[in-house]
């Protein structure tokens, strides 16, 4: 398989980086032997790679860098943990008293509110005396009948009196 310059040139960098498979590298090698333009390009690529190798400088971290960073990282974690604890629990004596007072006040207010709501509820309910279905002193039919007769008797007596007065006026 033969390749042309247009296909070969973009592959030169990958070839020098050792990133081509043998199936890709073999035809490129053959082309480089035959084409001096591409061969020069490969030579330039090698020179540039050598330039980079020569310009690589050892970078040293400052003394104690790792220890400082680790300390800072864990100090941050501890600070975050303390912050969470502080949110839920008072740390100082003064703030402890204030917290306790607020807690008691809140409890008292809750009890007062509960009592008030109970009072309001009972006040709002209708009087149920005499309306209960299970009441024991329910009047019997006889009682009702007697009461009715008494009322009728009263009415009759009233009528009699009215009639009597009318006759007297006449």
């Amino acid at each position: 398989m033969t390749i042309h310059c247009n296909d070969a040139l973009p592959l030169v960098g990958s070839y020098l980086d050792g990133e081509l498979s043998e199936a890709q590298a073999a035809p490129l090698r053959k082309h480089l032997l035959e084409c001096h333009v591409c061969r020069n390009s490969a030579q330039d690529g090698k020179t540039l790679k050598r330039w980079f190798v020569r310009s690589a400088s050892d970078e040293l971290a400052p003394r104690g860098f790792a220890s400082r960073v680790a300390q800072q990282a864990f100090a941050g974690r501890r600070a975050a943990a303390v912050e969470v604890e502080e949110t839920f629990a008072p740390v100082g004596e003064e703030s402890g008293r204030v917290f306790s007072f607020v807690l008691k006040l809140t409890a008292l207010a809750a009890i007062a509110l509960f009592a008030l709501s109970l009072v309001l509820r009972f006040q709002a309910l209708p009087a149920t005396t005499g309306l209960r279905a299970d009441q024991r002193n329910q009047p019997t039919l006889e009682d009702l009948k007697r009461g009715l007769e008494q009322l009728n008797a009263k009415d009759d007596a009233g009528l009699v009196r009215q009639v009597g007065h009318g006759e007297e006026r006449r």
Partner: protein
Amino acid sequence: MALQAMQTAPKEDLSLVEETLAGNQLAFQLLVERYQGRMFALARHYTRNTAELEDIVQDTFLKAFTHLSSFERQSSLYTWLARIAINTSLDFLKRHGRSPVQAVEDLEVVQGFERSRPNSHSPAPDSRLEREEIARITQEVLAELPEIFRTVLVLREFEDLPYQEIADILGISIGTVESRLFRARARFRDKLVHLHPEFEHGL
């Protein structure tokens, strides 16, 4: 031996990660010690100011610590850290309203380089000074490149990462890594010759 080291390193990384998550500060310190050199070298390509560099690397490790529980055990710890370091570097430069080209240089470092810069009449520099000079010019040229080209070059040429790992760090395909590297190298060469024509006939 190297192969053995490569095979055992991830295990050690994992055990240090687990120990750190369990609250062992020393384990995290060992983890930082293991990768601090590479993180400093990586972030160095985004700023030449020593104080800024230290801030960036410190932020990188603190972010890694905060999100350590989200680290996927199957991937390489270096890849994960490198991604954080690159993002932290770019965020840092953005926050300070400047591109890496404008990054403030540490005065002492600059003066050191200036002193070591050879002139045409001076004798041939020793290898260390030559190395420093080449490193300075490389940083100067890299800083002139768009970020996407600079990062891909840094990861390949300085970190020596395979294409797959570069693709993982940048969240791009291997094909994109190849094409970016191709263009990045061409841009680097052009810029180098433009800024330093003395290198036109051989780097």
